[in-house]
């Protein structure tokens, strides 16, 4: 019998399909980025499109953390630390790089990274964009290296112990970054040019944060990275590597007995997740135009963890959806719109899917109906009495989180992806596996 590797060699698909398969995620990313930038962003107005941009950054963070917390089941509480490392690396390269290359710390991008200001550039993209994207990728690499350094010694630990180590890592990063030197202000370009690189690399603003960065991050770049991140994580999940990750979550001893080098795969997951967190950090820094390690402590890590838990541990689409919901929700609560239409849609969905599966479920429908009614009653009372809901929005946000966890502790999609719970998926999957039993491949 030929070995697996020999079979794989003799089994290669046609050469013509290789390149398209490798680069289509990038093309889709460019297309969706352009769509967001040219159509959806302008259509929504400035404030909502800013929220959508932040939602995009949060999607990258939540989906990348899913690789560690969801796939391998390791509980990392230091994701914001990786974001900070990436953000500072990217900010340093962009800020001081701009000074060295373009002679000032002003944005030097094209239309695609035009974030407002006096003179709109005419070119679609300029060298500043290359510097920005390169610096974000370098931020990712920096965070990945940090992930490797943290991961290698600490991933022999399990559960709570690992959580504490990663928490400690996040705090160390924060304290180190807050202990850096004053940044060299944009109007003192000559000073920056005169200084050696290593000295620039530690002049990051200290406790005041790294400020006055050139802003480049637009919906285009964010959603380009969102799409690429989603597709890469999906490809990893549906591969041997991804199955090795999942097996570690399911049962470490069995995984080892089946030949999975669990330390190696935990480190891989950590490095991969840290890379995307680093890229997200770069996008975040060049969106706000400043980055402060003080904002990226463990509270930020918890925000990301909540998205992963809410989405369902191990579900990429769940984490992405939770990131969107949890970004938009606090903003919606400033001036809450009626929620009952959403409730109705949810009820219709649940009723449809559950009756399709011939297991009609009353409980979630009743819960949603009661919750929507209560929320609407509360909203009407608040409106009639002139109570400002925005004052209570963080309490409401917390209450909603508690409710969702009580109603659906496994997260929105559990470990499944959104398309896996749609009708007909099990049947198609069974057909793909060539299973002879027909309809037995039903999802529970």
């Amino acid at each position, binding site marked *: 019998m030929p070995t697996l590797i020999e079979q794989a060699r003799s089994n290669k698909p046609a050469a013509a399909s290789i390149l398209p398969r490798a680069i289509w995620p990038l093309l889709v990313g460019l297309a969706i980025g352009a769509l967001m930038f040219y159509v959806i962003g302008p259509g929504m107005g400035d404030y909502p499109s800013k929220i959508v941009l932040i939602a995009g950054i949060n999607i990258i963070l939540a989906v990348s953390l899913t690789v560690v917390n969801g796939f391998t089941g390791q509980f990392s509480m230091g994701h914001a630390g990786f974001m900070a490392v990436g953000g500072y690396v990217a900010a340093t390269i962009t800020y001081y790089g701009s000074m060295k290359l373009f002679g000032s710390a002003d944005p030097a991008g094209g239309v695609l990274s035009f974030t407002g200001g006096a003179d709109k550039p005419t070119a679609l993209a300029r060298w500043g964009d290359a510097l920005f994207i390169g610096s974000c990728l370098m931020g990712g690499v920096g965070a990945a290296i940090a992930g490797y350094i943290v991961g290698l010694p600490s991933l022999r630990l399990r559960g709570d112990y690992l959580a504490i180590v990663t928490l400690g890592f996040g705090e160390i990063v924060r304290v180190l970054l807050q202990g850096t030197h004053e940044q060299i202000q944009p109007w003192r370009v000559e000073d920056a040019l005169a200084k050696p690189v290593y000295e620039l690399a530690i002049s990051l603003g200290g406790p005041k944060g790294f400020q006055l960065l050139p802003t480049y991050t637009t919906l285009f770049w964010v959603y380009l990275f969102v799409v690429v991140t989603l597709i890469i994580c999906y490809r990893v999940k549906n591969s041997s590597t991804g199955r090795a990750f999942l097996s570690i979550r399911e049962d470490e001893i069995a995984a080892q007995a089946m030949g999975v080098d669990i330390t190696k795969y935990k480190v891989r997951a950590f490095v991969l997740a840290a890379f995307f967190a680093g890229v997200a950090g770069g996008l975040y820094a060049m969106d706000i135009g400043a980055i402060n390690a003080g904002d990226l402590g463990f509270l930020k890590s918890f925000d990301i963890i909540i998205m992963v838990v809410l989405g369902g541990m191990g579900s990429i689409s769940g984490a992405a959806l939770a990131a969107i919901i949890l970004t938009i929700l606090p903003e919606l609560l400033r001036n809450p719109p009626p929620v009952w239409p959403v409730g109705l849609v949810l009820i219709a969905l649940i009723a449809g899917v559950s009756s399709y599966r011939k297991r009609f479920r009353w409980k979630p429908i009743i819960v949603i109906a009661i919750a929507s009614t209560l929320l609407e009653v509360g909203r009407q009372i608040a409106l009639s009495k002139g109570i400002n809901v925005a004052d209570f929005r963080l309490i409401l946000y917390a209450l909603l989180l508690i409710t969702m966890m009580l109603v659906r502790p496994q997260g929105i999609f559990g470990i499944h992806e959104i398309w896996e719970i749609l009708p007909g998926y099990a049947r198609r999957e069974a057909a793909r596996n060539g299973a002879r039993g027909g309809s037995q491949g*039903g999802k529970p």
Partner: protein
Amino acid sequence: MSTPPIVLDVQGISISFGGLKAVQNFSLKLPRGRLYGLIGPNGAGKTTVFNLLTGVYQADSGTITLDGVKLNGLKPHQIAAAGLSRTFQNIRLFGELSVLDNVRLACHLRGKHSIWSTILRSAYHMGQEAAIHRRSLDLLGILGLDSRAGEQARNLPYGDQRRLEIARALATDPKVLLLDEPAAGMNPQEKKSLRDLIRQIMRQFDVTILLIEHDMGVVMDICERITVLDYGVTIAEDVPKEIQKNPKVIEAYLGEAAPAAH
């Protein structure tokens, strides 16, 4: 008839947990293509022997050699790579994963997986995934689980879970397969088909088997030689017929014969 070469050679392994000598001076020579049994009362140290062989525990003394490779000090995944695979007494499937994915994961061991080819879905990666997929379905077919490929492993009936564990262990392409109580919890009909299955596997996969089992019907029927453990000590090692007559074994299982009443 010449004896086939020894594939698994265990010499005098011992381990203690604190003051408890769980396994003492355990030795075993397992010739290629044979099926040996390991029996003993509850708590005799049978599963501890398996855990020592597969690297879950490290032996305090003694050597373990698999086909010329010394296994002492290797990690469990390296031992699996050397060609020793096992099933678990208390089933350890990847419950949330599908039946197919459980087997596909075990095929992982014999492939090469770079993160870049995974991300870019290189030709090699696609070819390998297809090969893994086919091989896994073949294995499931042999064990009669192919119609359940898409189900979550934890939803399978007990007997199917046991067979899935065997399928998963076979997917690592082992030289020696350790089966830890494969018949536990099975009804007589299932036990009979398990016996046939084990014989079929040995023929088809050219694999050597060491079996722990409490069900004497199964053990006496299929094992060529049996080692008996009691309190971590080997008390007998012989062919099934002799084991059945061995007074030490009877004593270990049934207790000392009562003195004759006067």
